[in-house]
């Protein structure tokens, strides 16, 4: 489907040798990681022993477009990869790092469905091939009132959607995480209230927004499994649970898709889930957040900003919408 007539190909579309090699390196590295996890029982935790391979990307700098870069202190790599909510591996913050090594991420394919011009199931390599990776330094605000600053590596979701051709009827984008209970122990829990697989969704304009990216790495390295390898969503102005991990399905649709937390507790989690200090979660005030890492006598409590500080870039998407009701 991606094959074009020779005459149609512009020189600018031709993959340079260096980025071709980089992609090979990425795929090879992903393979090495998979091998590493096979060996890991003998070596202890894979994340302790095997460093994820580095990626090639365009680094974010102060001159990056608004919102792509924040000068705030970055949360260290060990905290970004050791303190996670990824309930597929357990509900404790340390469970994902402990148990995600079982996840097989190579081979990986993503099914692109619904209102698109070129539906199909694509290998991860096919998905990534034409996209140049870039760094985005974003705030990550969890609905549980803690936050981090993370340097992600990825590319705009909008570029991918455009590539596969957004159909005229498409109004929403639905996402789905891998369902593989024998590798994801959290999916085996008998008393879990989440109906696996985990699903999420965005309005099409939210999905096309330049801040919305598909991330394949963090801190310049291939995405660790506990952070949603090999490919995950990042929507920095929404609570963290909207940024679905380990994606296997992207579907364009004319109907508002169901989202996992909304199905589990509709009064607590809405479809939009934009970061909003004025709307409290029943169990947590959202007025402030604790930036991680903190220490006992420096709780790092800071005020939460509307749209997680990205109001300038995204508030216009919600003009006229009652955000208290559409939380």
């Amino acid at each position, binding site marked *: 489907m991606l094959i074009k007539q020779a005459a149609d190909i512009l020189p600018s579309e031709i993959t340079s040798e260096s980025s071709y090699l980089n992609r090979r390196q990425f795929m090879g590295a992903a393979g090495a990681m998979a091998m590493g996890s096979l060996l890991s029982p003998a070596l202890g935790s894979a994340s302790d022993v095997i460093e994820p391979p580095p990626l090639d990307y365009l680094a974010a700098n102060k001159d990056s477009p608004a919102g792509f870069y924040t000068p705030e202190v970055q949360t260290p790599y060990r905290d970004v990869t050791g303190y996670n909510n990824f309930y597929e591996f357990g*509900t404790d913050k340390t469970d994902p790092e402990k148990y995600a090594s079982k996840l097989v991420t190579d081979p990986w394919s993503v099914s692109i469905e619904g209102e698109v011009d070129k539906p199909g199931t694509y290998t991860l390599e096919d998905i990534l091939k034409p996209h140049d990776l870039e760094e985005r330094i974003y705030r990550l605000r969890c609905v549980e009132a803690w936050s981090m600053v993370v340097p992600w590596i990825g590319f705009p979701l909008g570029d991918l959607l455009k590539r596969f051709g957004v159909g005229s009827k498409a109004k929403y984008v639905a996402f789905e995480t891998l369902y593989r209970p024998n590798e994801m122990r959290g999916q085996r829990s008998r008393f879990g209230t989440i109906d696996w697989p985990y699903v999420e969704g965005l309005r099409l304009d939210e999905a096309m927004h330049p801040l919305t990216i598909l991330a394949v790495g963090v801190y310049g390295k291939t995405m660790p499994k506990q952070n949603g390898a090999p490919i995950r969503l990042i929507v920095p102005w929404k609570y963290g649970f909207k940024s679905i991990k380990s994606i296997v399905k992207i579907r364009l649709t004319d109907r508002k898709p169901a989202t996992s937390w909304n199905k589990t507790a509709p009064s607590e989690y809405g479809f939009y889930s934009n970061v909003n200090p004025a709307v409290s979660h029943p169990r947590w*005030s959202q007025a402030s957040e*604790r930036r991680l890492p903190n*220490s006992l006598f420096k*709780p790092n*409590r800071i005020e939460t900003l509307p749209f997680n500080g990205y109001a300038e870039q995204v508030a216009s998407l919600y003009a006229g919408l009652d955000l208290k009701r559409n939380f």
Partner: protein
Amino acid sequence: MVVANKNSVVKYRRYIKVFVFLLALLPLLQLFLGVLQNSLGPDPAKALSHMSGEWALRFLIITMAITPLRIITRSSEWIHYRRMMGLFVFFYAVLHLLIYCVFLLGLQWQDLWADILERPYITVGFGAWLLLLPLAVTSTKRWQRKLGRQWSRLHKLIYIVSALVLLHIIWQARSDLAEPLVYVLIFSVLMLFRLPIVKRAFNTRSKKTAAVHKH
């Protein structure tokens, strides 16, 4: 068995009590080590608050298990440890609240007030903590004598504390109810031993065994 060892148990009770006391302080040591070794992760206040809360809960379970143990083993020896266990519930509950106020809220008292009023799980948790106060204060022998029969009625508050603590846990669960359900199950089993019918069953069984032994 109980009869044979009775004298030695009584004789060594004082030492056993010291041993149990030191054992019950180990979780505190664990908290201190976590702080000193900086091994509590990126959110140490949250970790400390969880750990202290869990230990208060565990000591509450132990305290509530004294009566069942007494019934099952037909030995009143256990009762000598109940006060200490109850006071350790209070000790870890105080620690839990202090950690929450000092490290999580940074002593912002208006935030504490807002949390108590607006967050149901904190409302019930704080309620449980308040109800522990009179129990801790009246735990001495002097208060026991002074209050007479009222004392044991007052100390039935521990059942309300248990119910509030369970709500405190259940309302915090985000999706996986396995852990809260385990605690509900444990408390349910412990409560069964308060039912007259269960007590009678154990009594008649013990009489029967006694009768059999006589033959």
